[in-house]
């Protein structure tokens, strides 16, 4: 396979690798700090001068955050909000995405354009008035309130992604189904959705991650400890126990793992969805 790496590619390779390692050190810096902090006891966190390698590696912090700091409650809230958001979002985005991909109607182009612009909408701009509206609807301090806003703020991108996937399915498959007597609903449920499964998974994971990572809405609408998702719970945790960085690092590690795994599954398609035709998937 000599021709795979032509000679001109080989020059300067060690230089590239060294530079890559330097940049990786910079970009992964807080994660290194997180790992070395979560593996040490509180005495070792407050050593002056600080040092990188813990003298004695311990896993006691995992037991402590689990039993004493309500981490399980935060996890439960995050899971309820993220799963609820994902379900609500996908149920509304599938029909909308299908309509934009497959049906001809006046205003289709405008709808497409609007969805792309709305996708950029800033949550901070409307969070003030949402607060008033939620107060009126008794949605403050409820999971359902967060589920609705998270689902709404991911809607445009979901519809956008899904309609892109539906469009790639050949029209002939649908026509064949309708000749065989399938109704539109049957065609969508039994033929289109299974073929578009990778697109559905991407959309659902994207929505799940968005809701899991939301901080702004939780900060504005959730007051009771028992309903706080991880992001808000850990933020308050730092405020109240500002000296317990080893526990925060441990909790952060546990909170980051689920999204990290999910993100790696969809990253390639996410980039293509955001940058459009300019990027190949």
């Amino acid at each position: 396979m000599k021709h795979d790496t032509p000679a001109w590619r080989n020059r300067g390779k060690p230089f590239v690798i060294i530079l890559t390692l330097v940049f990786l050190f910079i970009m992964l810096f807080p994660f290194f700090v997180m790992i070395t902090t979560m593996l040490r006891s509180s005495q070792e966190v407050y050593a002056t001068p600080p040092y990188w390698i813990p003298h004695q590696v311990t896993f006691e912090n995992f037991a402590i955050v689990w039993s004493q700091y309500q981490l399980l409650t935060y996890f439960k809230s995050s899971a309820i909000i993220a799963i609820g958001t994902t379900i609500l979002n996908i149920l509304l985005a599938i029909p909308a995405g299908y309509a934009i991909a497959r049906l001809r109607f006046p205003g289709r182009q405008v709808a497409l354009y609007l969805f792309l612009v709305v996708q950029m909408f800033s949550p901070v701009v409307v969070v003030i008035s949402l607060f008033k509206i939620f107060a009126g609807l008794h949605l403050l301090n409820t999971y359902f309130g967060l589920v609705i806003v998270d689902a709404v703020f991911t809607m445009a991108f979901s519809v956008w992604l899904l309609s892109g996937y539906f469009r790639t399915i050949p029209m002939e498959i649908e026509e064949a189904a309708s000749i065989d007597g399938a109704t539109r609903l049957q065609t969508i449920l039994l033929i289109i959705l299974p073929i578009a499964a990778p697109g559905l998974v991407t959309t659902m994971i994207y929505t799940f991650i968005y809701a899991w990572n939301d901080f702004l809405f939780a900060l504005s609408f959730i007051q009771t400890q028992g309903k706080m998702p991880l992001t808000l719970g850990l933020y308050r945790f730092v405020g109240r126990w500002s000296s317990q960085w080893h526990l925060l690092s441990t909790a952060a590690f546990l909170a980051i793992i689920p999204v990290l795994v999910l993100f790696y599954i969809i990253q390639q398609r996410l980039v293509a969805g955001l940058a459009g035709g300019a990027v190949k998937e």
Partner: protein
Amino acid sequence: MADNALTLSLRSRMWTREARLAYLMLLPAALVVVGFMIYPLIYVVLMSTYKTNALGWLTTFAGIKNFVSVLSDTEFWRITGRSLLWTGIGVFVKASLGMIIALLLNVKYRGRKVARMLFIAPWASSVPISVLLWSWVYTPEFGLLNHTLEVFGWAHPPVWLGTPIPGFIACMWVDVWIGVPFMALVFLSGMQAIPEDQYESAYIDGVNSFQKFIYITLPGLRNIILIATLLSALWTFNDFNAIYILTAGGPVNSTDILITSLYKNAFVYLKFDRAAVMAVITFLILTVISIVYAKFYFKGERKE
């Protein structure tokens, strides 16, 4: 003739049926978007023209008085200027670092897939939580950042989050850190679409690496750089988490940008009318950027 009219009316009837189905399918998504995005936006515009009390209730109509009072406040202009500085420098640094990392990842060597995975980590992990980690990293006495900087020869690194200018730089760096992976991935993906033979013929012509970058890579990435930069500008301008979690705009509002300041005006100082004015201004700025982004996005789509 009659036959023709019949097919025409039939076709238009089918067309309306299809259109009706389309509207029906769009309705649920449209309803929630209108109810929880468009209506709140209208409400915010309305709020910006009223005086509000501490609970956020609209009390008396104020017309453009709120706008006048915000726009004549030097603090507002300082914060807006800082917002633009934040966005301009942030996007520039993100794009530059993203380009360097993309170039590094575009070289074929064993393990570059792993390197690519690792470079994405800041984007992939939960942003609010990694910002919390950064506040530990920045801790002056016990934090490992200043310790490491001292090891590399910086004798007295600043108390990052406790002082105005280092605080702003520290926040900006966290925002950059979050945004670099997206840039790197998009640029890399664009570089891989540039045909290999362009580089090979350049090699035969004896062109050096820097010239290859200027004359082949950069022009090939033109459209991608535009789209990624616009998108990143929106995200950067909008970034609430980095500043709010690290410094909450402090010390003494010295690290506030429009987004964090408007949030604090509403939820901390309870000046909802003032916050609404800032929200409307923010919305206008963001809309301009989004429309330009959408334009280039569709241009890219059409080319394909």
